[in-house]
């Protein structure tokens, strides 16, 4: 529309051409996003180029396929999954414990928790792993006098050192996540719990933590995914996880990239499965928070 025509329409028109009801039945055409089409095309081209480079490069894809389910890789995979699970479980238990301690009115508990978080967040994970693994240099023997005693090198296996290193370090981070989750629960909830005679601990267990979970789950899910990959650091102290075993194989057959691709593919698969699990966990702990009538109706009712 020219500016003169526009002015006529807005300005001194008689009314009929300003509001023409007959256009009400015209078809609406959505905006065309040409930019997106062009961008997609460029990205596909870039991927095709990189893909071609890898396909023609010095990669023996047959070796990738051959080692994808090799026994050593499978064992490493199992170790990675077990370690992720155990270290994360330890981390969450410690995280909740220390979060509650940090928020405690008891100055002794609070002090211990603050120190713990300060120490384990303040030093590199790989350094902590090395300290745990080499603890035998400081304490050759471990035990409670009269009850049991053992040589530290027998106790502090790569598995134990990795578990302690990853789990305790994780606990320091999870404590902060749990603390923010607890803070997100309205104080009215605590007061209502007190008013029906709950002790502090019962209130925490029955009322505050279940509601804090909604805030805690997304970052902890994120940390589980980090943990899957962090287990690879334990290869430095000889824990036989996927990456370590892949390395052991390529030290023997020199197929470095092929085996790294195998390890990468497995990490991606674990993380994908975990992401789906996280989605369902988040949905579960959001209950009562959103108006989800459909889900409430489908939920089994309490009692008879």
């Amino acid at each position, binding site marked *: 529309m020219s500016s003169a025509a526009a002015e006529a329409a807005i300005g001194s028109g008689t009314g009929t051409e300003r509001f023409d009801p007959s256009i009400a039945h015209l078809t609406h055409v959505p905006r065309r996003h040409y930019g997106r089409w062009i961008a997609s095309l460029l990205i596909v081209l870039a991927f095709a180029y990189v893909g071609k480079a890898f396909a023609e490069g010095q990669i023996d894809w047959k070796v990738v396929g051959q080692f994808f389910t090799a026994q050593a890789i499978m064992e490493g995979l199992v170790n990675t999954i077990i370690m992720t699970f155990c270290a994360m479980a330890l981390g969450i238990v410690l995280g909740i414990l220390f979060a509650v301690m940090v928020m405690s009115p008891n100055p002794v508990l609070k002090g211990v928790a603050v120190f713990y978080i300060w120490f384990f967040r303040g030093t590199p994970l790989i350094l902590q792993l090395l300290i745990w693994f080499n603890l035998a240099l400081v304490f050759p023997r471990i035990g409670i006098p009269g009850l049991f005693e053992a040589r530290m090198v027998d106790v502090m296996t790569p598995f134990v050192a990795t578990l302690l290193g990853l789990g305790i370090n994780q606990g320091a981070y999870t404590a902060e996540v749990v603390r923010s989750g607890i803070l997100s629960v309205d104080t*009215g909830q605590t007061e209502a719990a007190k*008013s*029906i*005679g709950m002790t502090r601990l*019962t209130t925490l267990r029955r009322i505050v933590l279940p509601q804090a979970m909604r805030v805690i789950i997304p970052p902890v899910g994120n940390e589980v995914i980090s943990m899957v990959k962090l287990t690879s650091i334990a290869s430095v102290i000889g824990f036989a996880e996927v990456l370590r075993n892949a390395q052991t194989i390529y030290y023997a057959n020199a197929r470095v990239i092929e085996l790294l691709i195998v390890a990468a593919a497995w990490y991606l698969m674990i993380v994908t499965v975990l992401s789906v699990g996280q989605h369902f966990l988040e949905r579960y702990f959001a209950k*009562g928070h*959103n108006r989800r009538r459909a889900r409430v109706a489908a939920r089994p009712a309490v009692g008879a």
Partner: protein
Amino acid sequence: MTPIVVAADVRKTFGSVQALDGVSIEISTGRVLCIVGPSGSGKSTFLRCINQLERIDSGAIWVDGELVGYRRVGDKLYELTDAEVARQRLASGMVFQRFNLFQHLTAIENIIEGPVTVQKRRRSEAIDEAVALLDQVGLAAKRDAYPSELSGGQQQRVAIARALAMRPKLMLFDEPTSALDPELVGDVLAVMRNLASSGMTMIVVTHELGFAREVANEVVFMDQGAIVERGPPQDVLVHPQQQRTRDFIAAVLA
């Protein structure tokens, strides 16, 4: 009549603010006491001191014959443990301005939480009682609704049922209708009216002067942390003796 709540010279400060400045009062079993007064007059604080959501600085409160929060040994008062305080709170039920229903539990789960978790009553028995209580507050159909699916008035009625499920000897209401849309106030007041006529001892902090005049046996007017005037509703609300009471009532009715 035996007093169920006795307060003697209760004082409490928040920082530099004197929230309670020597409150003394006795409340008899089966009576309905309404506490009115301007915001910041200490009426909610006093209510919260009765069930130990706030700790008092000095003075003493007895609920159902027990000294609240302390054990007396000789001429010293020793602070009670967390568990002992929790047990003492069972004597009173509390209804909050903001309802404070447990957001992650359905209406019926909110009501049975205390009986099952705290009082260790049988779940099936608690559920039967909760159903009866929901019926009593007119919400039998909402038993499996989450708080976020209920209106403010419905949430407050569930909250009343939750408090009653603990079989308290005394009910405390902290401005129970102040957070409600005007059209929802009536339902909550109706439930409270029924409760009062059933003989429940009630202390109600409220701005609903009509409700106070109709239901209360006694009205207390508080200002600046102290009781200014107390007596039957006709005296305090209709023919107040003190200028401060008159000013307040005129301001509320204006």
